[in-house]
C-alpha cells in the first residue's frame, strides 16, 4: 500500500506531469470545446477589450491601436454633461418602479396556488402566460396604437377619468406608468411560473404540521409558504438588482419618442443614439462602461448582503 502511494507521489505529482496526463486523457474534450471558447473570446471578451476605446479618441479608420489615448476625458464629459442627471434620474426612476412591481408575480403565484379548482387554475395560467409569447415589438406597437389619440385605452380613460383625448405617450409624465404597465402586462404571468414551481417543492408535511398546530389558511401562507419561497425570491431579487442600470431598453426604445425624452431617455438608449446614430463611439463606450461597472458592483453588493443576511445568494 505504502509502495503504491510512494510510486504515485514520487516525482509524478508535479504540475507538468499533471498537465501532460490531463491533456492525454482529455484532448478530445478540449478539441470539442475549442470553438465555444473561441466564440466567448471573440463575442463576449472581444467587446470587453473593446471597452478600451472609452479611454481613446477612437477613429474607425485608425483602429484601436492607432487611436490616441485621452484618459478619462469622455467620462468627465459625461459626468459634467447636462443630460447626466436626467439619464440617471430616469434610469433609476424606471428601475425603482419596476422594483415596486417585484412582488406582483409572487402574489399571483400565491393566489393561483390557493385556487380550489385545478381546471380554473390551469386556464388562468395558460391565459396569463400568453403575453410572454407575443414579441416585444408587437406589444409595444399595440400599446402605442391603443394609447394614441383615438386608441381604445385613451377613450376608456377619457370616459372613466375624463382625461384629454390625445396620445398618452406625447405627455412626458405618462411615460412611466405606461412603461410599467406594459412590462407588467407582458411579464407578470410568466414570472410567476418560477414561484409556482418553487411552491410545488415545499414539503407537504410542513402544511400538515401547521394545520395540526391550528394554523389557519393565512397563517400557513405566511409561516410556511413564504419561508419556503424565500431562496427563490432572493435569487430573483439579486438578478433584478443587476438589471437596475440595464432597464429593458429595448422596450424603452420602442415606446419613447423625442417629445418625451425628458422622462423616458435612459442610459442605454442614450448610448445607442450617441454611438450608433451620432457616431461618437468613444464617448458612448465610456457611458456604457460606466453602466457596466455600476451594474456589476450592484450585483456583487446585493449578493454579499444576501449571503450575510440569508445565508444564500447566487454564489
Amino acid at each position: 500500500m505504502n509502495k503504491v502511494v510512494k510510486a504515485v507521489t514520487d516525482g509524478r505529482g508535479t504540475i507538468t506531469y499533471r498537465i501532460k496526463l490531463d491533456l492525454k486523457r482529455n484532448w478530445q474534450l478540449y478539441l470539442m470545446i475549442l470553438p465555444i471558447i473561441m466564440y466567448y473570446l471573440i463575442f463576449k471578451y472581444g467587446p470587453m477589450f473593446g471597452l478600451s476605446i472609452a479611454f481613446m479618441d477612437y477613429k474607425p479608420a485608425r483602429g484601436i491601436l492607432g487611436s490616441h489615448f485621452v484618459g478619462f476625458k469622455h467620462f468627465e464629459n459625461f459626468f459634467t454633461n447636462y443630460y447626466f442627471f436626467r439619464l440617471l434620474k430616469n434610469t433609476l426612476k424606471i428601475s425603482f418602479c419596476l422594483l415596486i412591481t417585484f412582488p406582483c408575480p409572487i402574489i399571483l403565484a400565491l393566489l393561483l396556488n390557493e385556487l380550489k379548482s385545478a381546471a380554473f387554475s390551469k386556464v388562468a395560467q395558460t391565459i396569463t402566460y400568453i403575453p410572454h409569447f407575443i414579441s416585444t415589438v408587437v406589444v409595444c406597437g399595440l400599446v402605442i396604437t391603443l394609447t394614441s389619440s383615438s386608441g381604445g385605452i385613451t377613450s376608456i380613460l377619457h370616459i372613466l377619468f375624463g382625461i384629454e383625448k390625445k396620445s398618452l405617450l406625447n405627455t412626458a409624465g405618462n411615460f412611466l406608468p405606461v412603461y410599467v404597465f406594459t412590462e407588467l402586462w407582458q411579464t407578470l404571468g410568466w414570472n410567476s411560473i418560477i414561484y409556482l414551481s418553487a411552491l410545488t417543492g415545499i414539503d407537504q408535511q410542513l402544511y400538515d404540521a401547521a394545520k395540526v398546530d391550528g394554523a389557519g389558511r393565512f397563517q400557513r401562507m405566511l409561516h410556511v409558504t413564504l419561508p419556503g419561497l424565500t431562496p427563490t425570491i432572493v435569487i430573483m431579487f439579486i438578478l433584478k438588482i443587476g438589471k437596475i442600470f440595464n432597464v429593458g431598453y429595448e422596450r424603452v426604445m420602442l415606446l419613447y419618442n423625442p417629445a418625451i425624452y425628458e422622462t423616458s431617455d435612459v442610459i442605454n438608449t442614450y448610448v445607442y443614439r450617441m454611438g450608433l446614430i451620432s457616431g461618437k463611439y468613444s464617448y458612448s463606450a465610456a457611458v456604457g462602461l460606466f453602466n457596466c461597472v455600476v451594474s456589476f458592483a450592484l450585483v456583487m453588493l446585493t449578493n454579499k448582503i444576501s449571503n450575510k443576511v440569508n445565508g444564500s445568494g447566487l454564489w
Partner: protein
Amino acid sequence: MMKAHTTDTSNIEFSMLERSKTKKTATKKLKCSVGSRIFDVFNVILISFMMLCVLLPLIHVVAASFSDPVKYAAHEGLLIFPEGFSTKAYEAVARNKNIITGYMNTIFIVVFGTTLSMILTIIAGYVLSRRNVGLNRFFTILLVFSMYFDGGMIPFYLVVKGVGLNNSIWSLIIPTAVNTYNLVIMRTAMSSVPESLIESAQMDGAKHWTILWKIMVPLVKPTIAVLVLFYAVSNWNSWFNAMLFIRDRAGYPLQLVLREILIQNDMSMMTAGAGGDEFMLSETIQYATIVVATLPILAIYPFIQRYFVKGVMIGAVKG
C-alpha cells in the same frame, strides 16, 4: 411569536384529543367557510379580472383587424366583435412584400440559428459536465463572468463589424449563438446523468464524440426540447441586433418590418394601392399585421406550453 402560538394551539389540540375525528373535520370546515370562503370568492374574481386584462386587448386586435375601416374609425374603446366586416386590411397586408421577405428571413434565422445554438450548447454542456477535466474550472469562470459583465452595445457592434458580419444575416445568428444561461441548464442536466453509463461506454472504446451523440443526447432529450424552444423564441423575437447590423431592407427579419409598420407608422407599402380611405385603413392594417405576425406562435403555444413551464423549472434549479 410564531413559536408561542404553536405551543398554545397544540396544548388545546391535546386537551381536545377525545373529540371524535368526524367532529373535528366538521368544525374545521365550518372555520373555513367564514373568512376563507370570502377569500376564495375574492381570489376567483381577482384572477378572472387579470385574465380579462390580458385577453381584452388581444380580442380587440382580432376584432379590429376584421372591422370595416370607416366604421372602426368612428368607434371608441375596445372592441369585442368587429364593427362591420371587411378583409381590406388583410388584403393590404398581403400586398406588402416586406412582410413576406421578413417572414422568410426570420424563419431562416430561427432554423439555422437554433440549430447552431443547440449544437454548440450541447457540446459545451457535455465538456463542462465531465469530471476530472483540468481546465473546466477555468472555462466555467470564463463563461459565468461574461454573464455579469459585458462590454456593452458599442464595443459589441464594433466587434461584429470587425469580424465582417455587418449587413449579413449571419450577424443575427453567430454573435448570439450561445446563451450562457441555457448552457448552464444544459450542463446541469448532463452532470446528473450517471457517470457509470459514460464510463462503461468508454470501457468499450467509445470516443467522447460518439458518447455525446449516441448516449448523452438521448438521455437529456427533455432538456434539449426546452432549450430548442428557448432559443427559437428568442431568435423569433429579436430585433435590436437586426436594427444595428442590417442595412438592406431585403435582409430585414420580421420584427424589424413590424417595427416599421407598428412603431414608425410607415405603411406606404400597403396603403399605396388602397385608394381614398388610406388614413382610415392604416389603423386596421396595423391590427391585421399584428394578427399575421403573432398567429403562428399563438397557434402552437397551447401545445408547447408545458415544455416552457418545465424549462423555467429546470432553470430554477440552482446550478
